[in-house]
């Protein structure tokens, strides 16, 4: 086996070759490390690469295999992990100055599961700071580029997770999705990404952004690999009280079974203003492919779609402002330079006293409170601060009912829309994002425009349903376009089978960016 072609094999094929003895884990890991060495300077998908550890883990797996010992489902296969998921003894930064030097004292449940499956953790991938953003540009540690066009964003927040797959630097990766953060970068980078039903995958050890919306999920280069990785990640976890206590279906077995009599719903409201014409054409063409496979396409309505963005950003920011209150410079993470902070405070107090306003700061800044405020202002970037402010405002006295409670009510109406739709159709098909990847810097100064780009993805998180992104075309600029499939709660097997059906008769998932 030539080492050049290892990165072109699917995860499922790599596992077969590892099992047959055709390849060793050391060869596989070394091949991907070489790719990272060669390409990551340009793409910057990884915040850290664990070369030494990955190679020694691979050697251990090879030894066990040679000795005839039983090995796990992903034995010897590299997996990249988004840097929002805690890894014991390895830095986990959330791409933030706040956690730049944080080393978790425990593993997230999904990491424990990957280790039990004997996967090789090859490195941690870049993301928007605290998973807040849709371009990975709010990372304070690196700028990830889209391998399809290095002038463009990889999407976000799991931008590194998607870009490392597109550039052939890992065969599998895991991300997190609060409002589209797996599906949108998967779409921008031409790979597959799945947001599981809320509760299917444990959130224990996932650094919280919006706890009622966050889910960890797999990214891969085809539907079979996605199914395999989901099967490893999913399952009940007593450490997460929202974890579903249900048996995990054998996704990797089910995925190859086509669906008979599939009915796909197409949401009228998703084909309105703002949708790029090439994205629209690619999605329509994908629907025709499904029809040619015997599926019925049905026009449906989700009447509250137009309120999804407002509802989502209120709820997500409220939860974020509460979750991020824990970053206080005391227990872990960044703390401002205390001596300088205290000297400033004393000087300010003296200046105020000389003007006869000695008590002016008393209600605002004790040394402890000034330490909190200074720490948080230096430790968080602009987008994170914006969302904390928005959430704090919406939860503050006098606005709580008008914004937060109102949004929770509209959230129920959005969920009711989906319940009604899924009585008529099996799955909902449509675009992932209104446009292909934008240019770096294009939207950073206009938060509202950025938020509106999440139009098609946030509803799945609000409703708690499952959804995935499948490559379904290339724009005239050669940029990937994704098809989104959404399914009722816990119907991941149907989503995966539908994606596999499409992939069996199309070749978009096999396209690779030029130069990689």
């Amino acid at each position, binding site marked *: 086996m030539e080492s050049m072609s290892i990165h072109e094999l699917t995860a499922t094929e790599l596992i077969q070759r590892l099992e047959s003895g055709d390849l060793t884990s050391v060869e596989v890991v070394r091949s991907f490390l070489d790719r990272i060495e060669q390409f990551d300077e340009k793409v910057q998908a990884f915040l850290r690469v664990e070369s030494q550890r990955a190679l020694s883990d691979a050697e251990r797996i090879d030894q066990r295999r040679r000795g005839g010992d039983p090995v796990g489902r992903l034995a010897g296969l590299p997996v990249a992990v988004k840097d929002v998921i805690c890894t014991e003894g390895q830095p986990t930064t959330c791409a933030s100055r706040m956690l730049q030097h944080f080393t978790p004292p425990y593993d997230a449940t999904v990491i424990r599961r990957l280790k039990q499956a004997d996967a090789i953790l090859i490195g941690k991938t870049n993301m928007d700071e605290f998973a807040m953003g849709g371009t990975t540009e709010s990372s304070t540690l690196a700028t990830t580029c889209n391998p399809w066009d290095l002038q463009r964003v990889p999407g976000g927040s799991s931008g590194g997770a998607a870009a490392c797959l597109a550039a052939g630097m890992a065969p599998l990766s895991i991300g997190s999705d609060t409002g589209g953060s797996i599906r949108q970068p998967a779409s921008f980078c031409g790979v597959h990404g799945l947001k599981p039903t809320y509760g299917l995958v444990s959130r224990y050890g996932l650094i919280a952004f919006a706890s009622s919306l966050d889910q960890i999920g797999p990214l891969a280069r085809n539907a079979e690999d996605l199914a395999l990785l989901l099967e490893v990640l999913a399952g009940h976890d007593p450490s997460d009280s929202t974890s579903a206590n249900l048996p995990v279906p054998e996704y990797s077995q089910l995925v190859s079974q086509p669906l008979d009599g599939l009915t796909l719903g197409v949401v009228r409201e998703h084909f309105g203003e703002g949708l790029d014409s090439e994205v629209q054409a690619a999605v329509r063409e994908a629907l025709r492919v499904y029809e040619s496979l015997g599926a019925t396409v049905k026009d449906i309505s989700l009447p509250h779609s137009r309120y999804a963005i*407002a509802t989502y950003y*209120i709820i997500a920011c409220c939860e974020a402002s509460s979750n991020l209150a824990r970053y206080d410079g*005391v227990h872990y*993470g960044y703390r401002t330079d205390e001596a300088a902070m205290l000297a400033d405070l004393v000087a300010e107090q003296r200046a105020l006293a000389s003007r006869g306003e000695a008590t002016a700061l008393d209600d605002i800044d004790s040394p402890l409170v000034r*330490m909190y405020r200074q720490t948080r202002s230096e430790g968080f970037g602009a987008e994170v601060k914006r969302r904390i402010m928005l959430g704090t405002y919406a939860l503050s006295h006098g606005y709580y009912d*008008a914004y937060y409670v109102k949004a929770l009510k509209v959230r*129920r109406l959005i969920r009711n829309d989906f319940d009604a739709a899924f009585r008529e159709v099996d799955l909902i098909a449509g675009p992932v994002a209104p446009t292909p990847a934008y240019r770096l810097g294009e939207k950073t100064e206009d938060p*509202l425009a950025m938020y509106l780009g999440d139009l098609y993805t946030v509803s799945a998180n609000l409703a*708690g349903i499952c959804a995935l992104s499948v490559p379904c075309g290339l724009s005239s600029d050669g940029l990937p376009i994704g098809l989104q499939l959404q399914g009722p709660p816990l119907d991941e097997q149907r989503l995966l089978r539908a994606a596999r059906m499409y992939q069996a008769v199309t070749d978009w998932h096999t396209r690779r960016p030029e130069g990689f």
Partner: protein
Amino acid sequence: MSLTRQQIVKVSLLARLRLRDDELDRMTDQLDQVVSYMDLLAEVDTEDVEPMAHAVEQTNVFAEDRELPSLDREAALSNSPKRDEQCYRVPAVLGD
């Protein structure tokens, strides 16, 4: 409704943030835009709609009442910016 700079200052205190003047200006503009957009929800009739705080109906999950190992103190303190043998250290809370 329009957000004022004064409101933003107040919210920044509640959020335990300390924003520079230029940040306060930009934040006022940007949040005003976003909040105006969110006022869109006012047109939705939510009379008699139960708020939905979670995607799955939450039930109490009870743990068995038995002792389990927890994070040891050294591990818990290992990431603290300032500590002594047993505790996190913070700036003095009570007077000089």
